[in-house]
């Protein structure tokens, strides 16, 4: 019976994309206290940046590099022209949130304007599969898995081992103390966007790959699951977001496992995922990796 | 239940024990913030609760006011256990607290901050708020609120947002707010910190007046010992989670353990046992 391992692999693949994107959202929220509603559209931007490169006949490797770099540049650029000034106006969480809704509209439809509405695909064989034991995996999925392993390793090293990564986590944990400890806030903000943008670019491209075909609504459609992953793993905790992404991906795919009372119909995937999230929060109000807040 | 706590059992209440704290223990992450603290507050008194930073005074306040639950021990108020009551029930029973960091409602006016604390407001119910004449009780309360604001010299700021008040003014507002609730017992957490010397005198004076006139009992955490010892009838000293001394202000000043606990010892030594 190969159903279960297959579902696990499928869950890990879609979870990987959520995880990678969620780390960025989580860092941005933890460090900038910004609910970036436009993050899904950063993903879309990355996917199309990569597509542009493949359209020139260059390889997926180059496309990946460009997608990552271009989205990172977009994120940093938007910090400079939009979020920085907004922050200086001391806009509250909610007016920033409305600004992000506006930005999401602008980005998505700018992409529509440039690339048109049709769905596109990377020049990657979507059909041939590799057999790994009981599991069948497509080339795209293999690329996605390997890239996300690399990305997660890089994220892990970056956050845990590098000075900038530590500073980012420190800032998310306790911004005042981070300033005290000599962390340059301005640099951290830019670094955060750089990392979040790069990860969004990568996640966008991977999503485009595993989806096979994509259109400018791709990232927008992923936004809610990404946010759910962030929350599942504890808001502001980057490692938690990684974990949350994988858990969510697995929960969604495994919900169709036929052993579970014949499998929950696929159209209830999101219902299962969201219910799992709500139940988890009721049991662990601080998220998977959160510490229980000290009373008073 | 509230009603009975407030007034019903007056006859059986031991006047020397309006508030009775027994062997309270509260641990945070394994560290005992309050460690078998025992304390009595006599009705009509001003009792000072003093002690160095980190002695557990505020933790004890949180337990008495229902904001935290003790790991063990009991709190009795007017002869009844209130250890398990939520904060709003404790407050409705007439035991009102203030906070060390004044918790004023920043985007409400100073006057609204006070009016909020006024008891018995039928128009706090949605439907009654819609009924004609719902504002009548507010008019009564407003008079008293303005009196209290005048008492703490904030009457000229009545219509300002409480968020623009200075730290000292916020303290005064907290004090007035506690009185507005028509309490039997007021727990004041460092009412003088950050208050300038003239207002400080004013506040102490008011404290005395109110206590004398209104039959209100005060339990006061305060660092400004000079001031607090002057006005209090009784002093309890906390150190490292315990009440190490309870007695008159004079006795407090003379007690070496208190002085050590307070000024600190030149060497880091374990403070010696609790006096009887």
């Amino acid at each position: 019976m190969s159903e279960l391992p297959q579902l696990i692999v499928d869950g890990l693949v879609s979870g990987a994309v959520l995880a990678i994107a969620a780390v960025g959202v989580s860092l941005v929220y933890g460090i900038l206290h910004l609910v970036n509603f436009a993050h899904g559209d950063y993903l879309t931007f990355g996917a199309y940046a990569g597509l542009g490169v493949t359209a020139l006949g260059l390889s997926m490797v180059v496309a990946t590099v460009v997608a990552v770099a271009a989205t990172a540049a977009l994120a940093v650029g938007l910090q400079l022209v939009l979020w920085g000034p907004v922050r200086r106006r001391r806009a509250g969480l909610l007016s920033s949130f409305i600004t992000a809704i506006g930005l999401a509209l602008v980005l998505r439809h700018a992409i529509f304007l440039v690339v048109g509405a049709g769905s596109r695909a990377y020049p990657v064989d979507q059909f041939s599969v590799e057999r790994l034991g009981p599991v069948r995996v497509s080339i795209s999925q293999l690329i996605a898995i390997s890239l996300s392993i690399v990305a997660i390793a890089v994220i892990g090293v970056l956050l845990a081992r590098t000075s900038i990564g530590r500073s980012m986590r420190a800032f998310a944990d306790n911004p005042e103390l981070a300033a005290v400890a000599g962390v340059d806030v301005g640099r951290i903000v830019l670094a955060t966007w750089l990392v979040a943008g790069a990860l969004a670019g990568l996640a966008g491209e991977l999503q485009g790959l595993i989806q096979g075909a994509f259109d400018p609504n791709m990232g927008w459609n992923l936004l809610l699951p990404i946010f759910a992953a962030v929350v599942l793993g504890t808001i502001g905790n980057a490692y938690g977001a990684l974990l949350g992404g994988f858990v969510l991906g697995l929960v969604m795919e495994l919900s169709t496992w036929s052993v579970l009372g014949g499998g929950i119909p696929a159209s209830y995937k999101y219902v299962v995922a969201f219910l799992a999230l709500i139940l988890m929060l009721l049991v662990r109000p601080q998220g998977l990796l959160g510490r229980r807040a000290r009373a008073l | 239940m509230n009603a009975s706590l407030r007034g019903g059992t007056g006859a059986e209440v031991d006047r020397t024990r309006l508030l009775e704290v027994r062997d309270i223990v509260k641990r945070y992450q394994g560290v005992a913030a309050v460690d078998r603290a025992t304390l009595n507050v006599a009705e009509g008194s001003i009792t000072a609760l003093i002690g160095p930073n980190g002695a557990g005074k505020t933790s004890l306040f949180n337990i008495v006011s229902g904001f935290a639950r003790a790991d063990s021990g009991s709190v009795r108020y007017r002869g009844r256990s209130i250890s398990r009551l939520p904060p709003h029930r404790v407050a409705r029973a007439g035991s009102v607290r203030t906070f060390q960091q004044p918790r004023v409602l920043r985007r409400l006016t100073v006057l609204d901050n006070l009016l909020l604390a006024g008891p018995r407001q039928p128009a706090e119910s949605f439907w009654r708020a819609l009924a004609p004449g719902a504002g009548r009780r507010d008019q009564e309360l407003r008079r008293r609120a303005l009196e209290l604001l005048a008492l703490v010299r904030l009457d000229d700021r009545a219509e300002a947002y409480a968020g623009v008040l200075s730290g000292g003014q916020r303290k005064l507002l907290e004090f007035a707010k506690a009185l507005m609730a028509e309490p039997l017992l007021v727990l004041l957490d460092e009412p003088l910190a950050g208050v300038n010397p003239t207002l400080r005198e004013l506040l102490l004076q008011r404290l005395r007046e109110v206590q004398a006139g209104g039959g209100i009992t005060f339990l006061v955490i305060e660092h400004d010992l000079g001031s607090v010892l002057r006005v209090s009838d009784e002093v309890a000293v906390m150190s490292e989670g315990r009440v190490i001394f309870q007695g008159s202000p004079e006795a407090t000043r003379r007690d070496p353990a208190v002085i050590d606990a307070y000024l600190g010892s030149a060497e880091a030594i374990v403070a010696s046992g609790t006096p009887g």
Partner: protein
Amino acid sequence: MLDPGFWSFVGLTAGIYAIFALGLQVQYGLAGLLNFGHVASMAIAAYTMAILVVRFGLAEWQAAAAGIAAAMAAGLLVGLTSLRLRADYFAIVTICFSEIVRYVLLNRQDLTGGPEGTIGLLGRGQAAAYNTDWDSLIARVRETVSSVTGLDVSRDILMLLLIWLVAAGLLLVVRRASVMPWGRVLRSIREDEEAASSVGKNVFARKLQALALGAAIAGAAGVLYALQFSFFTPDDFEPLVTFFAWVVLILGGAARVFGVPLGALLFGLLFAGTRFFDFWPLSLLDSADRAYLRLIIIGLLLIGLMYYRPQGLLGRRQEMLLE
């Protein structure tokens, strides 16, 4: 461009949004609750009404009342389970709840008509309608008006009047209650829950009440939406609708009750007015590009409005900075 037919439609949509956002105003503007699943209340009320009329033969007004009650009950359910969560976690729980509601409406075809919407409530091949009484009432009113005044008043204009009448009534009720001690208690909870409970306010019960009341108001918006459009599908209740209510609320000024209708009108104008952006040189673009451009312009206007007036139209900057 100034045709009243179009603008009365825009106006009535804005009115529905005003009522809808007023519910959010009670929940967030007064009580500080970050409800990101507000649209669920609207969906539950509208669907409850339609299902009760079509399947159980209830009178329309009874079904409408039941719909509002159902929205309120759902609000209570969400509150009872989740109000103790931190604000941002509460926000995500509510949005998840609204998505669960939408997917269930989509997938329980036997009960709800599924993706086909309410028209499929009786199953395939039969067009179900839940507002026949209402429509004939409106028709009678139109007849009466035209026989009395000789004016032919369109259905949209009647609905416009009715919806804004309801909106005004609810606004006044909420406004009245919010300046009364009731509102003061809620605002105190918004500012500092512990401070509120320290003076004897039952914070949890109050938050629950605000949530239920906001849900009921959103339910009323749902019922009006159903009556206006005569037909709806689960797609009408996407999360985006909640965010539009937030836009309305923040545009108007979150803590100002009368900011809500203003925000709703501005919002309606933003979406409808940009449909007229077809002059030169925009007219050189093809229809799709113009449609994208329209949403880009809406996005830019939102960004600009929030940049220059982060406190909203009626909000006070000082109040915002005190947050």
